């Protein structure tokens, strides 16, 4: 189906189902209950899930397939964001031209950086991409202020030309839309019993794009081109002995993953029309790496899982505070309650980075394949157990 093997098509269907039903799946707890803060089904967070999913899918095409570890991917996200805001300022609040431009600009940017950086490999490549990203960050923050808004960031303002829509009146704000048919911020709320489900236009727009991006990435993984990229990862020297030049392939992979990042940047701006330089800082690049590794580099679904996992943590775990903890452990005897809360407290709320760091270390040490490998191991363990159980139950009576 759609040029995919059966297994991949099933995976695609699962992703489609999950993203389309996300408002239900992510809201398992009724409104107002104790567990309601674990609900992730609000538009802002769901949009982040899919947008950072796109970012991680793109990064995975580079890192997962070729093994080139780019530490400057956030630069493309930032460039894409700026491009999209400029489209809003100059043309109209329609998201389609904005996203197209952000993909193109990020692609061109990736072509330039990639052409230079890919002359080297290994750690030198990582440092080169890091250097380029930090340079872009520093320039966006200082000298390029007319273009990027500097410290205050870039956002649509009254007085922008906006050729198609006409200039904004003072005090009027505009929200991004889709050909004037939908507004990205429109939502439909559905109350069933104690549950409230929110269906947001922006989320579904981003989700459809993510599904397309995911489909393209499956096609790349299964194509001869993807095979070439994997050959680069496993043994570049041997590949060049067979008369193949690795550079065009790595450059293509770099540009594609840069375009994915630009797409994610454009989408971020489409949901919330502003862009700032901090999006390009090297910690943002580090976060992309974390997402991909945590989920499982080189696997199809891993990066999406990793992105969702980190964004969920960032938004949910960081909201847990002392009162919440006291609410959970009220049933314990007083002394033990205090001890438990004192132990857990440093890991939640403001300290969620600590949990993330520990988790990330554990994954790198014990599960180099990320969450996907963890899932596979569990599945394998369960599979092994079942026949064993059947056998033992079958043999025991005989003895």
């Amino acid at each position, binding site marked *: 189906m759609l040029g995919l093997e059966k297994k991949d098509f099933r995976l695609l269907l699962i992703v489609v189902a999950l993203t389309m039903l996300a408002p239900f799946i992510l809201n398992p707890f009724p409104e107002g209950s104790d567990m309601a803060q674990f609900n992730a089904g609000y538009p802002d967070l769901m949009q982040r899930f899919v947008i950072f999913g796109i970012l991680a899918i793109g990064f995975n095409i580079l890192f997962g397939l070729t093994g080139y570890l780019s530490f400057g991917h956030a630069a493309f996200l930032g460039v894409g964001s700026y491009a999209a805001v400029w489209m809003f300022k100059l043309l109209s609040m329609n998201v389609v031209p904005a996203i197209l431009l952000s993909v193109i600009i990020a692609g061109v940017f990736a072509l330039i950086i990639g052409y230079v950086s890919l002359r080297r490999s*290994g750690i030198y490549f990582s440092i080169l991409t*890091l250097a380029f990203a930090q*340079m872009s960050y*520093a320039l966006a923050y200082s000298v390029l202020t007319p273009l990027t808004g500097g410290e205050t960031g870039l956002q649509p303002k009254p007085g922008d030309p906006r050729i198609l829509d006409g200039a904004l009146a003072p005090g009027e704000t505009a929200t991004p839309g889709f050909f004037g048919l939908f507004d990205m911020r429109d939502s439909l709320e559905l109350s069933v019993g104690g549950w409230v489900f929110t269906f947001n236009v922006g989320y579904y727009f981003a989700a459809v794009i993510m599904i397309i991006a995911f489909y393209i990435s499956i096609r790349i993984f299964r194509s001869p081109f993807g095979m070439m990229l994997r050959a680069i990862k496993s043994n570049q020297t041997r590949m060049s002995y067979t008369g193949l030049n690795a550079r065009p392939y790595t450059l293509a992979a770099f540009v594609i993953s840069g375009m994915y990042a630009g797409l994610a940047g454009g989408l971020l701006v489409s949901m919330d029309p502003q862009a700032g330089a901090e999006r390009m800082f090297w910690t943002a690049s580090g976060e992309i790496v974390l997402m991909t590794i945590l989920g499982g580099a080189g696997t199809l679904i891993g990066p999406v899982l990793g992105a969702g996992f980190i964004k969920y943590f960032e938004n949910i775990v960081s909201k847990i505070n002392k009162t919440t903890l006291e609410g959970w452990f009220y049933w314990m005897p007083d002394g033990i309650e205090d001890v438990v809360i004192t132990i857990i407290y440093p890991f939640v709320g403001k300290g969620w*980075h*600590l949990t993330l760091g520990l988790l990330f*270390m554990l994954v*790198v040490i014990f599960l180099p394949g990320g969450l996907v490998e963890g899932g596979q191991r569990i599945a394998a363990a369960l599979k092994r157990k079942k026949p064993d159980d059947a056998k033992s139950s079958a043999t025991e009576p005989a003895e």
Partner: protein
Amino acid sequence: MDQIILQILNGLDKGSAYALIALGLTLIFGTLGVVNFAHGALFMMGAFVSVTVSKLLTLSHKVVDETRTDFLGNPLQVDVPYVYDWFGQGAGDAIIDWAVPISIIFAIPIMVTIGFIMERGLIKHFYKRPHADQILVTFGLAIVLQEVIKYFYGANPIPTPAPSAFTGSFDFGVAFGFDPNAIIYPYWRLVYFFFSVIVIGAVFAFLQFTTFGMVVRAGMADRETVGMLGINIDKRFTVMFGIAAAVAGLAGVMYVPINPPNYHMGMDFLVLSFVVVVVGGMGSLPGAVAAGFLLGILESFASMSAVINILPGINQIIIYLVAIIILLTRPRGLMGRKGVMEE
């Protein structure tokens, strides 16, 4: 001319920090072949050793001073640091004043221990894994260390002053025959520069003139052969990791009066130090030191207003720009050896 001297001097203190961190990074890389992203965190921990020591030295207890009264007429309670009780008031004051240099004594064993624990507990298991894995696990470790420090010390910078003997500035203008006040340079930055020169010299002397250092250098050149000669090279490399950690820690200890430390100072320095290492040439100790000072001085030249007027923003990007140019024209960096990190 005076401007040029001033910029060179300005570059020296930053350059010293870069050089010290890069030296440690290169030591670890050259001996163990590990890319240590947690090295900036070691620098930061050194800085916080200094903060902790100065806090401990000012620990005090309340004593009722009969001679003075507070505004209610009751006898005044005064905080008396414990060091007063132990050494008398004069010596106690001096000790508190010299808290930062005194921290060096504590920092060396603490940092060496941290280095040992890191190497034996974590990094040892990553020798056979790809470089990407090493980068990632040490990156995770850096986040953890950083967050632990943030939990205990908070997110705000903690100012810790230099000894009062070094608080002023030195007027180089007079010394070199220029106008007075043309070149003013804080004493502590001079101290920092000389300190780093001493540390760097000590590390090089240790490697060059001791038997232990000779074995380590042999191990860096050809680990397998040294192992076959019946020398336990792993043990010595562990010691080198401890030394590298101590060098980074000392850089941090003495840096505290220049910039109040906060929990992410390590990361800020780490990125630049990596650039320094790569510019100097992976695995080359003199290269790392030279590149550290060179980039520090270049950075301060780029922030001269005359330069900024011609090329706006150059001060922000000069280091990265130089790194890109050097990596593309001299792939092994300034003094890189052949065959290091070239797979």
